[in-house]
Every structure is written in structure tokens, then in C-alpha cells.
């Protein structure tokens, strides 16, 4: 069945460039198994690499016992997990409890199916692209499958029927959906300039210029939200071990736990691969290399190397972040997603679409347009510089309209209470921190200390006389 026969504007324009017409069923099987094996092996390596990189960054050796440089450490861990007892807890909703890790790992594995690893190569005499499949809505497929992965987390937390997993899964889904928005918005500009959702065509569109340069702001937004998507530090709130032990995975053991764990690492690869495909030119060789031999490095099996290299670059970026940054507080995290990334992505999208529109539909020279943009940007910056900073985020706090003179019930509500109400540090019998607008009363200890020090200084001048007096 041909998708383009639907006679659609969209489908025709967005048809993938990769040609799968030669593929047979065994080619598919080979590719599928190849991708799976690649992912599993990469994860084993990635776990080791992460520990090693972290250790190096923290100036300690890291795993070094099993195999050379501790290379077999992850393998050992995997076997250990396999041999552990696989039990399910008493209160669990059995079917969903088992289903959850399966969903998580399967959907994680499936993302790579539409990622182009390279151009056309010959496998056992069949000329075929290094990509399992592609379709006009490939990126949509990626988003759909990753969204399905959230079900694994949510259902896992819910089916455990336990407190920590539930909290972890709710947090996790809130986090994932929040960052998915920013991510989705940042991708729109890529589609806009590529004119397609097909991964192979997006890669194709980046032959000249990688979108990470042309669409740098979108790339930045994507980088941040990608880390949020995979629940990595600094955004690993769902499984924050200090608060939630291990989030949705608390009640899982053995292979079920392993699948969750595996899914997380595969997801890291997935987001890196997507970043590679959409922003980093996919399998295209980086700039100076393209000059070699009339682009010979962009043909055959070579691109696989560039692709894997770029994916590992993304992985390293995430290791690096983990080693460098601290975990966000939940409200900071949400603020970042909702109040910075989404508006930024939106504004960027509008800009791109306008620029693209002017370029395509109006006869305007690129240079003049860029000048205009620069001018507007400059004006905006000046305005933002001059704009008075808002003192208080909550608009309800001190507005004159509300009847602040009406006495409120003795409960602390910032929007009802007058701002200067005296602060009771022991409201309800527990020590409580001051609410916005309240001031800590001067500490009694502080006063005492001040008095003492005053007394001491005074003593420096007058003690002697007093002493004398005492003595006297």
C-alpha cells in the first residue's frame, strides 16, 4: 500500500527519501535483530562508560575489577540481576505489574526502528538503506512510542500499590509530559525547514547545513528537554533516591527491574539518536571530513561510524551533566519547563515560520531580512533591559482590590492575609518557615548574643571599674 495514494498534499511532500523497495523479510529480521543487539550492547557499554566517566571526573578509578578496565562489570551486573529471585509483591495488580516493565522496554527498543543509521549499503547483495523502515510520519511515530513508554512508568508505579512507586510514577508522568511539550515544539521548526516528518528526508535535508547550527535555539531547547524526558540528572526527580528511594521501580526485582533499568538507558540512546538525526546531520560526516575524497566518507558503511559517534557524544553530554549538576527542586524544574522552555520554543517557532514565510512567499533579500531581524532583536533586548523587574510573582498578594481590611480566619493564606501580619513561627505547634511577605521575628538567641557581645565590648572598657566596684 502506498501512503501517497491518499492524494494528500502532506503525504506527498513528506514522503521518505530512503528507498526500501528492495527489502525482503529476512532483511527486516536482520535489521531488527541488529538494532536490538546494538542497543543491548551499547547499554552494557554505556553503563560501564558512565561509571568510568563519572569516576574520572570525580578523580577515582571506577569499576576496574571485572575484565580489562572493568569492562565486564555491566555484564556481571546483568547476570546477577537475571539470577535474582523474581517475586511480585502482595498488594500488586499482578497483570499490570508484569506488563509495565514489558511496555517500558519494548517501546524503548522500538524507537530506533525509524532512525537512519546510514545511507544505502549492500547486505548479502541486497541494496538497502541502513534503517529498518521509514514513513512520512516517522518522527510522530517516535513521539508516539516514547509516549507509550510513559505508560510503563505510570502503570508500574500504580500497579505496585505502594506509596513511593505511586508518587514516583505520578511525578514522572508529570515531568515527561511537561518536557514533551517543549520538545515537541522545538521539533516543529525542524519539520518546517525540512518539509517532512520522515527521518531519512530530514537527514537528507541536512546535507549542506546541520540544523543544530541553523536552528540553534531549538536545538538548545531540545537538549534540555531531552534530559528531562529521560529522567536524568539534574531532572531525575521521579526516582530521587533521597525522597522516593527509586520511584516507580521500588517494588521491582530481578529482570523486571532490569527491564526498567535497561529501558532508561535505551531511552538515553534514543534521545541522542533523535538529536543526531534531527539536529546533528544524522549519519553525515562532520564538516572537514566531507571534503575527503569527494564525500566518500558519506557512502557505504562509513556513516554508521559518524552516527554512532554522534550518539555517543550525546551520551557523554548526559554523563557530564550528571557529574556536574545537582538535582533541581520540583518547582524549579516545572518552572523551567513551563515558563522558559515552552515560551522559548514557541517564540522561536514563530520567528522561524515568519522568516521562512518571508523567504518563500515574499521577494525579500536574505540579507535585508537578517538586518531587520537583528534590528528588532536589538530593540527587544533594550526594552527588556529597561523593563522594571517585578517585585513579587504572585499577583494576588498585595492587590488593592481585595478587601484586605476584612479579617481572615487564622490560616495563612498569602492572598488574603495582609502582608505585614505578624509571623507566628510556631503556628500549629510546629516550627514553620515564614511565608512570602512575612518576616522572621528577630531571633531571641541573636539578641542574647548581641547583648553578650555588647557586654563584652563594654566590658573591655568598663569591666575593670565594675570589677573594681565588685571587689570593693
Amino acid at each position, binding site marked *: *500500500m502506498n*501512503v501517497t495514494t491518499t492524494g494528500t498534499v502532506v503525504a506527498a*511532500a*513528506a514522503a521518505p527519501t530512503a528507498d*526500501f*523497495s528492495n527489502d525482503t523479510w529476512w532483511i*527486516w*529480521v536482520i*535489521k*531488527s535483530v541488529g538494532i*536490538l543487539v546494538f542497543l543491548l550492547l551499547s547499554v552494557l557499554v554505556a553503563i560501564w562508560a558512565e561509571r568510568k566517566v563519572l569516576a574520572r571526573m570525580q578523580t577515582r578509578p571506577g569499576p576496574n575489577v571485572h575484565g580489562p578496565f572493568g569492562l565486564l562489570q555491566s555484564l556481571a551486573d546483568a547476570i546477577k*540481576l*537475571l*539470577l535474582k*529471585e*523474581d517475586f511480585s*509483591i*502482595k498488594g500488586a495488580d499482578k497483570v499490570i505489574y508484569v506488563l509495565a516493565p*514489558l511496555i517500558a*522496554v519494548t517501546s524503548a*527498543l*522500538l524507537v530506533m*526502528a525509524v532512525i537512519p543509521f546510514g545511507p544505502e549499503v549492500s547486505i548479502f547483495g541486497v541494496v538497502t538503506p541502513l534503517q*529498518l*523502515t521509514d514513513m512520512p510520519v516517522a518522527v*510522530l*511515530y517516535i513521539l508516539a512510542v516514547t509516549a507509550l513508554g510513559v505508560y510503563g512508568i505510570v502503570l508500574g508505579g500504580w500497579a505496585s*500499590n*505502594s*506509596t*513511593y512507586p505511586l508518587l514516583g510514577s*505520578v511525578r514522572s508522568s*508529570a515531568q515527561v*509530559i*511537561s518536557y*514533551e*511539550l517543549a520538545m*515537541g515544539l522545538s521539533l*516543529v*521548526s525542524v*519539520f518546517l525547514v525540512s*518539509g517532512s516528518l520522515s527521518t531519512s528526508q530530514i537527514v537528507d535535508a541536512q546535507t549542506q547545513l546541520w540544523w543544530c547550527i541553523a536552528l540553534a535555539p531549538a536545538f538548545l531547547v531540545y537538549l534540555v528537554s531531552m534530559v528531562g524526558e529521560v529522567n536524568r540528572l539534574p531532572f531525575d526527580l521521579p526516582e530521587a533516591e533521597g525522597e522516593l528511594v527509586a520511584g516507580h521501580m521500588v517494588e521491582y526485582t*530481578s*529482570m523486571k527491574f532490569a*527491564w526498567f533499568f535497561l529501558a532508561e538507558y535505551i531511552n538515553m540512546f534514543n534521545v541522542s539518536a533523535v538529536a543526531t538525526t534531527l539536529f546533528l546531520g544524522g549519519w553525515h560526516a562532520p564538516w572537514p571530513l566531507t571534503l575527503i575524497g569527494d564525500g566518500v566518507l558519506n557512502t557505504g558503511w562509513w556513516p554508521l561510524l559518524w552516527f554512532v559517534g554522534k550518539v555517543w557524544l550525546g551520551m557523554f553530554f548526559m554523563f557530564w551533566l550528571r557529574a556536574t549538576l545537582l538535582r533541581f527542586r520540583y518547582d524549579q524544574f516545572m*518552572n523551567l519547563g*513551563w*515558563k522558559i522552555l*515552552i*515560551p522559548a520554543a*514557541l517564540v522561536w*517557532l*514563530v520567528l522561524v*515560520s*515568519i522568516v*521562512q514565510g518571508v523567504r*518563500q*512567499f515574499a521577494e525579500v533579500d536574505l540579507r535585508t531580512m537578517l538586518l531587520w531581524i537583528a534590528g528588532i532583536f536589538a530593540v527587544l533586548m533594550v526594552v527588556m533591559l529597561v523593563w522594571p523587574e517585578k517585585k513579587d510573582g504572585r*499577583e*494576588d498578594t498585595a492587590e488593592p482590590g481585595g478587601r484586605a481590611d476584612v479579617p481572615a480566619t487564622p490560616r495563612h493564606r498569602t492572598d488574603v492575609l495582609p502582608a505585614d501580619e505578624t509571623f507566628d513561627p510556631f503556628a500549629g505547634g510546629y516550627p514553620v518557615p515564614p511565608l512570602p511577605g512575612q518576616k522572621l521575628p528577630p531571633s531571641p538567641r541573636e539578641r542574647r548574643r548581641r547583648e553578650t557581645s555588647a557586654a563584652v565590648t563594654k566590658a573591655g572598657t568598663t569591666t575593670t571599674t565594675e570589677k573594681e566596684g565588685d571587689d570593693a
Partner: protein
Amino acid sequence: MTNPYVPLLIMAGVAAVMALGGIATSQIVGPKRYNRVKVANYECGIDPTPRAAHAGRFPVKYYLVAMTFIIFDIEVVFLYPWAVAFSELAVFGLVAMLLFIALITVPYLYEWRRGGLDWD
């Protein structure tokens, strides 16, 4: 051209078999020792809170996030086809989508200003 979804099915099948196989293997090779405490909920040694999932209370903020997400997700859904068909839709599409974005921005600003995006 063949149906691009068939390879996906094959891969999904392989992946599912692998996932199930892993769990099955661990069931076979793993030990089986019953222990009452082991199958209880993890609650840091405290008695498990009854019915965490059924009567649990969450900050209403979670619902708010979910609802806001739905609205913006739909926006994104509309943006994708438009982005792909950008050149066909031409000026009409551009203007329409800018209007659409502006209209979505209005409730976004509303929610922001009314504290819907604050998490505290």
C-alpha cells in the same frame, strides 16, 4: 513500495519476545523462597499505608499539569502537519497558524498570570 509498518511489526515482535524471554528466564533460573516481609510493600520499615493507590491524595497541581498538557499537545498536533505542508499552505497557512498560536498563547498567559504554572 512495501508497507513501512510491516518491519515495525517484526521488530516489535522480536523485542517483545526478548522482553518476555528475559522475565521467563529469570523466573526459571532465579531462586524461589517465600518470605512474608519480602512481598510486603516497601515503606522504610513502617507498616504499609493502606490503599495507597485508591484513596491517595495528590496535589491538585498534577491534574492541572495534565490538563494544560492536553491543550498544548493538541496545539503541537496541529503544528506538525502545518509545518510539513508549510510551502503548500503558503501565506494563508502562515497567517492562520500565527493566529492559532496567538490564540493558544492567550490562555497560556492567563494560566501563567493566575498562578496555574506555579508549583508551590
